[in-house]
């Protein structure tokens, strides 16, 4: 597998701020990987996402050190609008991303920007609306639908451009648990059926953990920990120290471990947790 993202000794300091938002980061992401990034607010997660999409340094003023390479090319060397065909970003506030009058126009906007022809647009529109279950909403104004639907529209609008890398910056922070689950269902389908590289920044770990191949912990502009998901969460103590609370089941087993009632691996899902509990109680 080849590396689609290679970040070397990368630092970024916004103009007017005292300390860099990101400092000396090294990160590589393999093609087709599903990466979860977690960390407290102000850790530099969003800055990292923007750096991969070229919003930094394109739209922001600041000082950059090191390199951020996407598909082997430094992000600054892409022409305006070119990198965005390779990397798609979904933001946390869906409403702030809408600029069209109907869901359909919203979905088509990006495809028109990258110069697709009418048949291509039609084909992708059908694909993406089926994937995200939006067909019945096409004629509605995007700001009059429910929060969960809004975020699915925002996601679909990016997916329709078929970016090879998909970055989601807290895509479900405004959603209720069920709508949150549905966004992750779409991501699970993508992971299973397509070969996208997916990077998700999230506070809510419940849905993220079962999908993620790799996890990254950021704090104060640095990467503190990067590992495969299972191994990553065996470091629960470090996570708790950074104020990141693992999902209930995992947290429970962590507490048991602290009290020497449990020695094994932490469960990633409720189902795994139940199996473990049955084992313990059965023994």
């Amino acid at each position, binding site marked *: 597998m080849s590396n689609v993202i290679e970040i070397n000794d990368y630092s970024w300091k916004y103009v*007017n*701020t*005292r*300390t860099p938002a990101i400092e000396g980061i090294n990160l590589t992401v393999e093609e087709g990987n599903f990466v979860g990034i977690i960390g407290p607010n102000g850790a530099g997660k969003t800055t990292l996402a923007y750096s991969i999409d070229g919003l930094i340094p394109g*739209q*922001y*003023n600041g000082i950059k050190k090191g390199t951020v390479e996407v598909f082997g090319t430094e992000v600054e060397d892409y022409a305006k609008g070119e990198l965005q065909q390779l990397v798609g970003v979904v933001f946390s506030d869906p409403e702030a991303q809408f600029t069209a009058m109907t869901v359909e126009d919203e979905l088509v906007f990006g495809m028109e920007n990258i110069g697709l022809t009418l048949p291509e647009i039609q084909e992708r529109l059908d694909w993406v609306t089926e994937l995200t279950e939006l067909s019945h909403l096409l004629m509605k104004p995007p700001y009059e639908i429910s929060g969960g639907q809004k975020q699915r529209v925002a996601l679909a609008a990016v997916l329709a451009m078929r970016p090879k890398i998909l970055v989601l910056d807290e895509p479900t922070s405004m959603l209720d648990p069920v709508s949150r689950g549905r966004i992750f269902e779409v991501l699970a389908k993508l992971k299973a059926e397509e070969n996208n590289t997916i990077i998700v920044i999230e506070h809510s770990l419940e849905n993220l953990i079962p999908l993620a191949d790799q996890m990254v912990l950021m704090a104060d502009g640095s990467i503190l920990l990067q590992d495969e998901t299972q191994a990553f969460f065996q470091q629960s103590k470090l996570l708790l120290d950074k104020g990141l609370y693992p999902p209930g089941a995992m947290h429970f087993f962590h507490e048991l471990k602290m009290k020497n009632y449990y020695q094994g691996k932490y469960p990633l899902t409720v189902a795994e947790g139940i199996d473990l509990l049955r084992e313990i109680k059965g023994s």
Partner: protein
Amino acid sequence: MAEEIKTELSAEEIWTEEAGEKRSIGVIHIVITALLIGIGFVVGAFGSISFPLGFGVNFFWTGIVVQQVGAIWFGAWGVIAGAIFPFFSNAIAGTPFYVSLAYLPANAIQAFLPAWAFRRFKLDPRMKSGKDYLFLFLAMVVSSIIGALWSVLVVLKGFNLLTADSVPLFIWGWFGGNVVAGVVFNFILLRALSAVVIRTTAFVKKWWA
């Protein structure tokens, strides 16, 4: 954002580019133009419907604040937005299409003049000194006089909507409606938000970036 340094810029520094500073037109300016038209649309229509004198002329035109403050902060983009939005807000308030269209130069001047004064005389948009107030007030008065003369003489007379003897009433109406609303809003808004705006990427130092 919380750790922002409080660097006190001087009025001079606000309007001049630092050595090596690169400023270029970007998508943000397009967005700002659109947002200003949007705000102006609502705020302007509100004024036009609440205090009408007729033909989009009114006693207290709240739209002026978007026009003038917008152009002070965002240069030519503010001027463009300030010229265009009254067209829509007037339309909603019941001004005929072509009358609205003909107001365009008057509105452009009203947006342009204060913005020009700030850049030409290096005034501080945070309204720090008496000079800032005086010059802005003068710019408001002069631009509103030009605006009033244009709109009333050229447009209302040109469209044959008024008698010669009632022209002064409309000139005063347009002028007063702008200046009073401008005095009420411009100073306060500039004081409240300029410190914020000049630190954002959207702020326009010259005319276009």
